[in-house]
């Protein structure tokens, strides 16, 4: 199935029912004053951006602050979006700038500080989340926290957001080759990481 066929199918839906509006349509409606369209956009990106921030900062409080900064910047800059690129790429370009600035301003804490160790050891402190899933997330956060900021950002954008190297280069203001170099350096650093190996052995 070609990409264009996929898009046509997606526009109609498998059973012929109209699919959810495209991001660009929601943007236009939000800019005309539709609160519902804005809330729909938030709904699509809020969770994704929060988890993006969580993996980058390693802390939930920092992730909330960073996500709020990103979404406020998206809101303020929404009138300037002209559809020159996909809306998701535009949002993550803003996010990359905010993340870089945030990481520069604050030191990334080791997520396995005393408080976090207590949480991972005692599932009762996180009643809403299965202990195993929580532990997996925290091991991934811990592994990512051991990377330098610029490598962590590229890993996040490539492996967790599935952007191409060209997209990543555009968002970070670097060349695609530089993005690849940082990514391979990150891969070698993560090779033999104790948390990732623990995850593998727990399978």
């Amino acid at each position, binding site marked *: 199935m070609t990409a264009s066929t996929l898009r046509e199918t997606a526009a109609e839906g498998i059973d012929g029912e109209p699919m959810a509006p495209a991001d660009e349509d929601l943007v236009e409606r939000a800019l*005309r*004053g539709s609160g519902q369209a804005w809330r729909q956009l*938030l709904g699509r990106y809020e969770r994704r951006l929060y988890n993006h921030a969580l993996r980058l900062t390693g802390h939930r409080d920092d992730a909330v602050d960073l996500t709020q900064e990103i979404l406020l910047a998206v809101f303020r800059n929404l009138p300037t979006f002209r559809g020159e690129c996909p809306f998701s790429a535009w949002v993550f370009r803003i996010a990359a700038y905010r993340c870089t600035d945030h990481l520069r301003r604050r030191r990334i804490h080791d997520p396995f500080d005393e408080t976090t160790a207590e949480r991972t050891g005692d599932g009762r402190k996180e009643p809403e989340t299965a202990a195993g899933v929580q532990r997996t997330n925290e091991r*991934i956060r811990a592994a990512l926290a051991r990377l330098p900021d610029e490598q962590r950002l590229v890993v996040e954008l490539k*492996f*967790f957001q599935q952007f191409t190297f060209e997209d990543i280069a555009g968002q970070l203001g670097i060349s695609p080759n530089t993005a690849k170099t940082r990514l*391979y350096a990150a891969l070698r650093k993560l090779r033999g990481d104790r948390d990732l190996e623990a995850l593998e052995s727990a399978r």
Partner: protein
Amino acid sequence: MSHDCDTVRDRLFEHAEDRLPPAERDRIDRELAVCASCRQDLESIRALHGTALRWADEAPPPELRRSLPAGFAGPARPPSGWRDPWRAISAAAVVVLALIMLLDVRLVRTEGGLLLTTGPAPPPAAPATGVPSPVPAGPGPDSGRPGPDAAYALRTVRDRDAVAAPLRPAEPGPALDAAGAALLATLLRAELERRDELAEAAIARLLRIQLRQERRLNDLSRRLRDLGPPPDAGAGTGAGPGAVRLTTEPEGAPL
């Protein structure tokens, strides 16, 4: 065949995601067979892909949504695209202003209303009531002979309402000066390049220029009305208040 790790690594992500054409995939497989370092990189890519899939998204806390704006109070940006009626109207305004500039289009008041005309201004028409047409400037005020009418093509009461001459000053020239022409060129370029902000700003400025000219035209026509009827030949200088002397006769001199 010499092995180049950088060339192989350039394609490793696509290989791991199974996005290579078959011939290229086979070539990379042959390269991987001879390089342990490249094989290790491929394994690391696959392992991290697997790790990323194990991440379970967490829900953001409710206070995050409460801290964000509820939306835009009104239109934050006019809709874009040629389907937008305002864009069509602005494009029409561009065409009208281009006509004014290029074809010396003028707005003329006639008995039936306003008339859009082009070309140079017609010569003044002969008055209908027998009052002499304006003549070139003649002898000065000391000559004792009736002086000329004013330099502008002023008419009799009847003709003034049916004036065919342009309402703008007699000096010929385009409706817009060089600055306006440059501005119009900028507007056309902006429209072609679909630069909304530049086009809108240029349209706003051109509309302000047009508004100023319309005010001038209205002011001139008001002054014409305020002049009242031209002084009659036997009425001496008995003009109404605010009347403009049309002859060069000294005040009070018998006619």
